[in-house]
Structures are given as C-alpha cells and as structure tokens.
C-alpha cells in the first residue's frame, strides 16, 4: 500500500450469526475483476478499484462521487476459519461470509431437572 495514495474506506456493516461473521461493504461501481479479498495470518484485506467515468466529450458540471481505490483491513483473530469464507458482489455491494471455527460457535447446554 503506497503511502502517497489516498484510499476510500467504504461504509461497512458487520454482523454475527451463530455460524458466521458477515461483512457487507458499499462499493458502488465495483466490478468483480477489480476487487481482491485476501486473508493472511489472521488479517483480512479488501482492495478494489473504481475506474473514473469515461467521458465522451462531456464536461463535469457537478461532482460528488469519488473514484479510485477502496481499501479495508481487519484483524480476524482465531475465531474465523479461512477455509469457510466466501465473497460475492452484487449491485455494488460486497458480501463476505466468514465462517466461524467450531469452537467459536455458541453451544446450547441442556439443563436437566433433578427429580
């Protein structure tokens, strides 16, 4: 990650279910081929590139949208099993499903009644 580059940090939702941790990131304009998701030694890195709008002789008269490189990094800890992870992109939203290790899943403990 070059120091002189500015990155866009997308807004994310992160939630847990019993089996998974799910991360959703808004990355409007992202194409699957311009996105990389990596897990290495407990660190999750998401990088993506949004190319600028192709101008066909037009001029910008108003500009709010950003383009460039998306970057997100998280430390996962030992709760996540990297082999139980999958990612999909739809309508500019990345959904990353990170499977929990069995030991990290909640276990229902039966309560016995003593008679």
């Amino acid at each position, binding site marked *: 990650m070059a120091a002189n580059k500015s990155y866009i940090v997308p807004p994310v939702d992160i939630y847990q279910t019993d089996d998974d941790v799910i991360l959703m990131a808004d990355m409007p304009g*992202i194409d699957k081929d311009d996105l990389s998701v990596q897990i290495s030694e407990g660190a999750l890195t998401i990088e993506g590139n949004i190319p600028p709008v192709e101008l066909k002789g*037009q001029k910008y008269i108003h500009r709010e949208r950003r383009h460039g490189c998306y970057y997100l990094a998280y430390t996962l800890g030992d709760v996540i099993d990297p082999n139980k992870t999958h990612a999909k992109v739809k309508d500019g939203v990345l959904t990353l499903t990170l499977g929990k290790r069995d030991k990290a899943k909640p276990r229902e403990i039966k309560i016995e009644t003593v008679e």
Partner: protein
Amino acid sequence: MRFMNWDPFRELEDLRRVTDRLLGMGARPCYTRRLEYPPLDVLEDENGFVVIASLPGMSKDQIHISLLGQTMTIEGERPADNGENHRYLRRERGYGKFQRTVEFQTQVQSDKVEARYQDGVLSISVPKAESAKPKQIDVAVEE
C-alpha cells in the same frame, strides 16, 4: 444547477450527536456520513446531460425517477436488513428513504430520458430540447 435535499441520514446523524452529547460520549471517534444521499455527478455536453448516482444495493424497482419541466427527482428507499439472528458489531451502511432533485438550466426532452442501473450505479441521460442546443449560424460576409 441547484440541488435540494431532504436527507434522512443527516437527521439520524444529528440525532446521534445530540444523544451522544447528552450521554457525555461526545469524544468517541464518530463516523460522519456524507451529507447528501445519493452522491451525484452531472456531466454536460451540447446534446444533453448525464446524471450519475451511487446507489449500491438497490433493485431497479426501488428507484423512482421523475421529471417535471426542468426539474428531475430521484427518490427511493433502501430497505433495512431485518435478519432475526443478526447481531450487529458495526453498522455504517445507511438505509431508509432518500430524495435528490436536480434542476437543469436548459429545457430538456422528458420523453427521451434513459436510465440504466449497473453495479450499484445509476446513470440517467437527459437530452436537451432542440431549442436549447447551440446552432451554428453562417455569417455572410459582403465583399
């Protein structure tokens, strides 16, 4: 070009700030949402305008575009996730109703507006009315 906004996200942000102040948590690092949603780009050439909006995670039928005279309105609602067993650790992606209005400086052809939604980006092309397009006028020079 003039934009008019009604922004539910800003109202939520304001509410959160007020609540934080009341609870004395004002010092915690806060996430500031963009003030207007969705963010828009507007391009122009002599034939018309292209309005581009970043609207990730929508379906076509959740976005409504209307044009009245020279004023175009983009509105819709981004549904909230209501998963029963979802325990949230972080929630930054906005949801709820949004509306933005663009006022064009020239007359436009409302019957020739075309919209396309791809990869979470909405592109609307709005052609200018013939009367608003620049015309080349030959100047006869008498010698």
